């Protein structure tokens, strides 16, 4: 039980640490979300009113609001490892994978602040979500945060060079967003492509969010949540494994 207590403590410690010394983890995504959600859906709804632009675009921005905090945290963790600031954790009598897990759980939980602001701003454009829907959005946000973190760690942690890690993190973001069904439902794609796109940890989450926000296809949401959970946890585990392996080569 000490491990569970340690994990809980470390997660809470990381939440507090980010809130007090790494405010940029929250502020940067928040400013980005607010800036994009204030203007983009409004401009698009003025441009064309034939589709539910507010709902569609707001969903896209909601997904990107989940991406940014998890990418920043993963990247910072790689940088901190490079400059020795993780030594504080590495001397603790706790398994290393728990140290990493606690850090990213904290980040996923704090990412909910950004998601909440995105949901509030989305309501301006007529996106009304039920309490159950909001709960599902929060759950999906945590799941996707872990998945994105996993992919960033998996591809970036092999190299502690800050420029290369940053570049890799940007590429990961672009690929994951653009190879997900962000701008169209997955059902319009050919079956083979649907399967390939589902390898992307963001795809299932995007589909589930679309169903929740548009209020259509709710019945598919539990399945999508389950599939996303498995896929994102698999990516997260792979990323943590690579990262912990990197510690050995420090």
């Amino acid at each position, binding site marked *: 039980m*000490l491990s569970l207590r*340690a994990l809980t*403590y*470390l997660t809470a*410690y990381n939440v*507090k*640490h980010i809130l*007090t*010394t790494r405010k940029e983890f929250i502020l940067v995504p928040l400013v980005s979300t607010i800036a994009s959600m204030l203007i983009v859906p409004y401009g698009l709804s003025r441009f064309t009113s034939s589709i539910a632009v507010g709902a569609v675009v707001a969903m896209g921005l909601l997904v990107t609001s989940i991406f940014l905090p998890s990418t920043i945290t993963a990247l910072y963790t*790689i*940088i*901190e490892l*490079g*400059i*020795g*600031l993780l*030594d*504080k954790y*590495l*001397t*603790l*009598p*706790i*398994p*290393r994978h728990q140290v990493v897990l606690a850090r990213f759980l904290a980040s996923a939980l704090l990412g909910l602040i950004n998601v909440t602001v995105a949901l509030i701003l989305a309501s301006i454009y007529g996106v009304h979500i039920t309490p159950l829907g909001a709960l599902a959005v929060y759950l999906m946000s945590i799941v996707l945060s872990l998945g994105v973190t996993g992919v960033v760690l998996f591809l970036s942690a092999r190299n*502690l*060079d*800050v*420029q290369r*890690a940053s570049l890799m993190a940007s590429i990961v973001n672009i690929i994951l967003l653009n190879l997900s069904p962000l701008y169209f439902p997955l059902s319009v794609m050919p079956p083979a492509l649907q399967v390939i796109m589902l390898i992307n940890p963001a795809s299932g989450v995007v589909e589930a969010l679309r169903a929740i926000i548009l209020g259509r296809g709710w019945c598919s949401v539990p399945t999508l949540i389950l599939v996303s959970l498995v896929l994102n946890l698999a990516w997260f585990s792979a990323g943590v494994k690579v990262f912990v392996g990197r*510690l*050995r080569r*420090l």
Partner: protein
Amino acid sequence: MCGRFIMAAFVEFSGVWKYVVKGVSFRVEGPGLYALVGPNGSGKTTLLKLAAGIIAPEKGRVIVCGTDPFRDHKVRERINYVGARPLTDLNEVVHSYLGLYYALTPKHLLRCGVEEALMSFGVHRFLREKLYKLSEGQRHRVELAKLIMKRADVNLIDEPTEALDAEAKARVVEVLRKLSSESLVIIATHDAELLKELRPTVVLIEKGELRGIHEYEEVAANLSGGLMLEGIVRASSPEALEGLRGLEGVVELSYKPDVRELLKRLGISPDTHNVMVFESEESAKKAYPGATFVRVSGLELNYSLRVRLRDEESLSVFLRELTRRARVVRLSVSGG
């Protein structure tokens, strides 16, 4: 060594390779006090980090109390690792930093709380302060407070007297004496005065290799005898001062550039709290992502210089060579 543990407190290196460390093998057992002594870059800190389980060896084996500290997290409960500076970013509050260790140390291994531990080194008034607001010496005292807070079988301390004033140094001596009577204490130090006070078993390390393990008395003449020169010199490159190391009679030589002057020359305010300056080989660029490397060669700077000479006979030769290579701003000679 604590009676409740079955396995005795020991640290064993078997053919360990890591960074500058080249195939080091030795075993030290507690209770007792051991000092890793050697010039900069000889691998002292690396050995401490290996024993703490922070890093793993490339080749060879590190065993602490019967197990690998990198793989086995449980054994890290029995280890106290005290760095030459706090192991966190300086934006962190003192209480939060030490509180992490306090909360994650099993209760039966805690001697006292955070505040009491800080009080022991006279820095309790900084409990709620961010580390960057403290001086280097005060930060080091905060780091040393870990020794008081946690009861460990193996205490690993990097440069225990770095940046400390006389009062704090005396406190460190007292604490290390007490700890070494009940546990295994390994320190890495250049401080000849500290060695003289503590008379530890000396583990000599040079260029990453073990040169021998000796009782203090056997090597005391080399470590603390002779003359001590301390002062400020102005040189155009560290290489100019490095060349003094090979002179006959030079037992120990260390120098550090004036960081404030260096920052000013680079157009950075020396009071910027989030700038960290460290010395590194150019070949280590990859290990410090985000760092800006500045070649100090060719940049005339003040250096604080500390030299131990074997005897008075070496003094005139040394001074002649020093004045040829650098301009002496101030220099004091003691001992002899």
